């Protein structure tokens, strides 16, 4: 940051460049260490906290920490109960909790002011390029969405059997007439492709856009006193609005996860 001339382009580039470490040949064989480490750290903190509370959980009067964790768990469980008809406690509900807590924490990294965090990353971690919001990395959102997608296919086959699943690919939603097989298959393929795409891109787009807005406001603030005043006012407004987006996107991601998994359990 300090080594190059500070232009709007370099500012944006600085904030939008991942800490990418190549681990092999080709573009694919590289790791975004910033996304990966932040995500894992948040997961460890989040689930470690919940686990520490749960380990001392009492069925009597809960303390404040336990009440808080129970609130989160019951919130997720209520959603799972409403959507998923079956034994949800063995997998679906705890998985939804994982998704919700993890995505919420990763989204919440967006609350940290980007330029101050840049100083922290630069001075403390010694990294010029470091993006703090893992869900603004398309790798993270696709990792989650494709995992859900694989689980969806897995449960589809597990519940209906391989034959049942293939039968469904060809015979629903229009009917089992052989003339309709092609249309059914195309329809299902579109569905299977669009599900992870929309799932991943919705979250990614929202978080990425949120970051971009903060950067634009930061650039405005660099233009002078007027920019500082309006940048600050709009920054506050956008931050408050962003609280809603962060929670809402985590909620939507969790809900879609439950919906997809429970759709896999139902035969047409």
């Amino acid at each position, binding site marked *: 940051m300090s080594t190059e001339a500070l232009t709007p382009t370099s500012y944006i580039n600085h904030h939008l460049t991942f800490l990418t470490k190549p681990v092999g040949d080709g573009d694919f064989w590289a790791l975004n260490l910033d996304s990966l480490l932040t995500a894992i750290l948040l997961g460890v903190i989040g689930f470690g906290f919940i686990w520490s509370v749960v380990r001392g*959980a009492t069925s009597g009067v809960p303390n404040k920490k336990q009440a808080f964790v129970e609130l989160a768990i019951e919130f997720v469980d209520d959603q799972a109960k409403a959507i998923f008809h079956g034994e949800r406690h063995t*997998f679906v509900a*705890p998985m939804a909790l994982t998704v919700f807590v*993890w995505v919420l924490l990763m989204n919440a990294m967006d609350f940290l002011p980007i330029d101050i965090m840049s100083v922290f990353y630069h001075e403390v971690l010694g990294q010029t390029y470091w993006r703090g919001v893992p869900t603004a990395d398309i790798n*993270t959102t696709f990792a989650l969405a494709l995992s859900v997608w694989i689980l969806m296919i897995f449960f589809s086959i597990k519940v209906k059997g391989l034959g049942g699943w293939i039968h469904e690919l060809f015979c629903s939603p229009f009917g089992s007439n052989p003339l309709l097989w092609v249309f059914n298959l195309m329809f299902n393929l579109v569905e299977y492709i669009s599900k992870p795409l929309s799932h991943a891109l919705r979250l990614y787009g929202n978080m990425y856009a949120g970051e971009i807005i903060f950067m634009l406001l930061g650039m405005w603030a660099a233009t002078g006193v007027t920019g500082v005043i309006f940048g600050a006012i709009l920054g506050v407004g956008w931050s408050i609005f962003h609280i809603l987006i962060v929670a809402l996107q985590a909620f939507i991601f969790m809900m879609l996860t439950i919906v997809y998994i429970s759709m896999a359990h139902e035969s047409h």
Partner: protein
Amino acid sequence: MNINLTLISQAIAFAVFIWFTVKFVWPPMLTAITERQKKIEEGLAAAERSKKDLELAQARSTDTLREAREKSTEMIGGAERQAAHIIEEARTEATKIISMARVSAEGEATVAAQRAKENLRDQVALLAVAGAEKILRREVNAQVHSELLASLKSEL
């Protein structure tokens, strides 16, 4: 925004976190919540039950109280009646005793008067004899006159 190995690493991390939550986070919390729900349910049922019990006990206590009141009223009435009866009896008894005492006193008085009259009669006879003796000193034969006196005495 290149897709790279991060995707697979994040997916692995996701899988690990799911496994952790499924295995270690969800079951104990669920147990605690379910147990608490059961406790609350039982508590509510117990409260309902004791409320009903209280109502029953109140009804029973009202009944008992009324019964006791009736019984005590009855008892007081009985006692009053008995007292009146006793007083009545005592009065009758007293009247009887008084009249008996009067009769015996009257009898005794009659007897005493009789006795006094007889005494008096004896003494009058003696006195008369003595007087006559004094008057008729010599000529009087006590034997003859005693017959006369006896006849006189019986006439008295």
